[in-house]
């Protein structure tokens, strides 16, 4: 009886003590024009209700970190002239989800860092990690004022953070590494605004709002990613990709770069682990799925598992093999049934197939990372959390 009371009572006790669930997002996710950006936090606590939400933001001017290195501007931006602002929203211990929003006018080279916290009616608090993003017309030059010389300027563009996880590392511990995911406009984009319009649904769906199985991994592990936009200057066509000017230099920041294009051509990506690139046709109805599939190639080194695809991989473990024996031995080594190794058509390449929809095989929103590709993705998480994704 005592055990029964404990079993029944513990969940109630825990939920009563639970901190509010809270999440926050800015909108638009990135816009390189003057605009008002709105940071919205939403919180819920079903037992005690939500008493308060605080959205705190540091807003300032994006710079090329000129003060750090004379004449050497930074590819990653710094901030000057910053001000901390906050919105405090109070509620009558509302037990359904409540929201609190802080609008921020961005009128040129804005760089914003925000966190949100919520307090329950029982004084429990929950908070989000810090996210930094850019907004407004981007930086176009670096400027130094040097003694006896005066003001020196040079044309310069930085990587533009969209979702930059800028949490302070825990005391005495190294923070985990992040996958720096860059998006850049193709030459066929009508203008930069079209590019930012096209990236918004892709990024939001991939990491936050999609409800299909294919995006479950990226939604769960979204905090492993920094998402950046790059300047114009990229051009993709088939498997030919060129980057010119600042677009080429800024790529150094990214672990993987995707060129967003509107003209129709079959998308292509390098097989890479850190430093690769690919393309995405943004007008496809399943563009977010295609983005993840291409990222499977250029960020995670996975090969296609379908007949006629690129059945080659460098992931750890590989998800395709050139013999049945290596498929079987690697399956066993990864605690997968070796009997699931099947040939991909008559290609002579092999994969571990559990009969479920796989993101590297089926173009289907219900697909997922499975078997060996699932192991490779788990290993990627382990490496990132361990301090080095690549």
């Amino acid at each position, binding site marked *: 009886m005592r055990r029964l009371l404990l079993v029944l009572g513990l969940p109630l006790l825990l939920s009563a003590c639970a901190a509010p669930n809270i999440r926050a997002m800015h909108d638009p996710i990135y816009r390189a024009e003057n605009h008002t950006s709105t940071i919205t936090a939403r919180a819920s606590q079903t037992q005690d209700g939500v008493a308060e939400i605080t959205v705190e933001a540091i807003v300032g001017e994006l710079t090329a970190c000129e003060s750090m290195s004379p004449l050497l501007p930074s590819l990653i931006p710094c901030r000057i002239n910053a001000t901390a602002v906050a919105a405090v929203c109070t509620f009558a211990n509302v037990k359904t989800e409540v929201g609190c929003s802080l609008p921020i006018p961005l009128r040129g080279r804005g760089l914003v860092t925000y966190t949100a916290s919520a307090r329950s009616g029982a004084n429990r608090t929950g908070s989000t990690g810090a996210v930094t993003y850019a907004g407004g017309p981007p930086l176009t030059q670096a400027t130094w004022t040097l003694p006896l010389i005066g003001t020196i300027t040079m044309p310069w563009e930085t990587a533009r953070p969209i979702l930059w996880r800028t949490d302070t590392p825990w005391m005495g511990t190294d923070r985990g590494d992040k996958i720096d995911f860059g998006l850049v406009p193709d030459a066929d984009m009508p203008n930069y605004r079209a590019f930012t319009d096209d990236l918004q649904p892709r990024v939001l769906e991939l990491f936050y709002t999609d409800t299909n199985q294919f995006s479950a991994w990226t939604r769960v592990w979204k905090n492993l990613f920094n998402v950046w936009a790059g300047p114009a200057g990229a051009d993709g066509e088939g498997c030919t990709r060129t980057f010119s000017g600042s677009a080429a230099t800024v790529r150094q920041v990214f672990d993987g770069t995707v060129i967003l294009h509107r003209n129709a051509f079959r998308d292509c990506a390098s097989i890479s682990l850190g430093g690769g690139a690919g393309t995405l046709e943004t007008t496809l109805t399943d563009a977010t799925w295609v983005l993840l599939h291409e990222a499977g190639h250029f960020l995670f080194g996975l090969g*296609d598992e379908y007949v006629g695809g690129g059945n*080659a991989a460098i992931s750890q473990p590989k998800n395709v093999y050139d013999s049945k024996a290596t498929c079987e031995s690697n399956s066993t080594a990864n605690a997968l049934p070796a009997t699931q190794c099947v040939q991909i058509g008559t290609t002579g390449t092999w994969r571990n197939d559990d009969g479920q929809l796989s993101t590297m095989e089926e173009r289907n929103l219900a697909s997922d990372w499975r078997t060996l590709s699932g192991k490779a993705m788990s290993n990627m998480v382990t490496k990132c959390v361990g301090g080095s994704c690549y």
Partner: protein
Amino acid sequence: MTQHIRAICLYLICGLVHLSAWGQAAPGSSERPLPAATDGGTAVLVAPRPIQTDSDPVTQRVRADTADGLVIVVTIDGAKVSLDSAVPARIPRKRTRADRNVEGDAVKATAFAGGQVIASAVVPDNVINIQEGRAGVVRTERRQITIGLLADRPIDTVSIEAPATGASASLDVRPVYARLCELDRNSKWCRR
């Protein structure tokens, strides 16, 4: 009740100061949109306060995560290597590792100054691609590679090796530092 008192206090405190300061919070801002709460909640704007640049978390992070270096962009076409650009910049440390064990093909860059090796980095070589549909694996002999090299002094040459297509070259990058030196003769980027 406590919440209402707290909200009123915040409102009174904030109301005195926020109007003058909030407009400065965003560079060039002239609008002062107000926060909002859902579900009958009340929203107030807390007094803006300035953040010193040295204590700005973004600046602190960039200071820790970046260092002086050179970003070189090369086009490798079969066995030929050509320099597209070389840009001295403050760059992320994490993608400049020389000890990186790259899976698949790799490009190695080695920086020399005064005949000595001062930096090197290994990055993936994007020679193997996958095109969706029936194309499958596509080998791109012509590809563009971006490499970051950490360097706290001027680099003379950068050696590039791309074994995937038997490419190698030594690239003269002295002109990019000469341009910096023209801007400031006392710069550490001037050769002494």
